[in-house]
């Protein structure tokens, strides 16, 4: 690692570098665990500057945030399921299991990802739930840049799975539900190991799913062209 990059570590920790320099520093951090430790310590130090500069937000903001999270799905977890849409549970579970095998969705990775023994079951449940809805269709497409995405899209819900996605550097994959050309965020995808599974509970009839690459934490609106678009035919 060059001394020049090491010299930039302080500026990097303060977000005071441009995108090219940031990429160079972060590449160096991946190759040098000792430097990565130093970088982590500098980030912790910078965070304490932020603690020092803390300012209480307007009191009304707390209620607004709590209000928003009440309807905000969490990345990497299962959205609440509407039990009224579940029917013929056992039969659809069998279909879901077949779907997992047929599309090569690795349940092993799902378990590793979440470290939850019941994750594979939840994933199968999600797919079964969507497959059980009227008009369910399976659509698949290659992802620009690498990997393959498969989705089950039905009235009111969809499940997306994708595999072999390239690792992103300080960027996140973000899922969008596109109805009438208007994208609505369905959250940032947890793509550890290049695999994702996401359930979307609010899918208007005729919607498409799209995935874009966004700044860490996601964007309000897509800032890049989708790497994949999946639409029911």
């Amino acid at each position: 690692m060059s001394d020049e990059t090491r010299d930039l570590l302080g500026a990097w920790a303060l977000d005071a570098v441009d995108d090219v320099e940031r990429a160079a520093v972060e590449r160096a951090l991946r190759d040098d665990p000792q430097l990565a430790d130093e970088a982590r310590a500098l980030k912790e130090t910078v965070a304490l500057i932020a603690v020092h500069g803390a300012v209480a937000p307007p009191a009304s903001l707390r209620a607004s945030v709590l209000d928003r999270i009440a309807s905000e799905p969490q990345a990497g977890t299962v959205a609440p399921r509407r039990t009224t849409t579940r029917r013929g549970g056992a039969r659809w579970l069998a279909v879901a299991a077949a779907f997992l095998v047929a599309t090569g969705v690795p349940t092993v990775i799902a378990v590793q990802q979440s470290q939850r023994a019941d994750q594979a079951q939840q994933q199968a449940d999600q797919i079964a739930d969507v497959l059980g809805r009227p008009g369910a269709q399976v659509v698949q497409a290659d992802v620009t840049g690498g990997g393959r995405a498969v989705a089950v899209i039905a009235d009111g819900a969809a499940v997306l799975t994708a595999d072999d996605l390239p690792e992103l550097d300080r960027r996140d994959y973000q899922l969008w539900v596109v109805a009438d050309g208007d994208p609505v965020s369905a959250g940032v995808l947890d793509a550890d190991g290049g695999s994702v599974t996401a359930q979307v509970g609010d899918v208007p009839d005729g919607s498409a799913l799209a995935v874009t690459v966004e700044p860490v934490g996601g964007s309000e609106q897509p800032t890049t062209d989708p790497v994949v678009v999946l639409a029911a035919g």
Partner: protein
Amino acid sequence: MTTPPPGTTGAPADRDTRSVRLAGLVGRVADGDRQAFEELYDETAAIVHGTAVRVLRDPDLAADLTQDVMVEVWRTAARFDVTRGSVTAWVATMAHRRAVDKVRSVQAQRTRDEVAGIKDYVRPHDDVAETVEHSMERDRVEGCLGSLTDLQREAVMSAYYEGLTYREVAQDRGVALPTVKSRIRDGLNRLRECLGVDR
């Protein structure tokens, strides 16, 4: 300077206690625990908002950003990895990156008051509802910032709170690039040692 620098004997116990407590809260938030999120909000929203207010210098934009970041904390809690840093660093990094992206995207630097960031940081923080730990930490940082040279402190604080790159700091202040880089690097390292942040 009223608070002596605590020296280089490792992280103070109250910081460790807070780190462990916040990591526990994030774990519960990742499981969808709204009560835990409320506690986490009370512990971290002021850090987010302080960063947003200082970098953006617009109360409405800052409030929007604080709201977005706190919702993102809820949304992505499952991705927090304690081996990669503290909750405080996770949240502060998220807030600062977003604020800086916003400032740079609207190219607003030129229209903003260049010295306000420096004045802001010494302003009393009477408006902060805070825990005892938080207040101890703030006093420590105050003391340690005082142990930097004026030039180091100015370079670090203007880079952080004006959302400037070190190149822009150099240009703005009419100082050579290597000089700015070393002021930032040496200033941050001195701060790190003074605050007892372990490598």
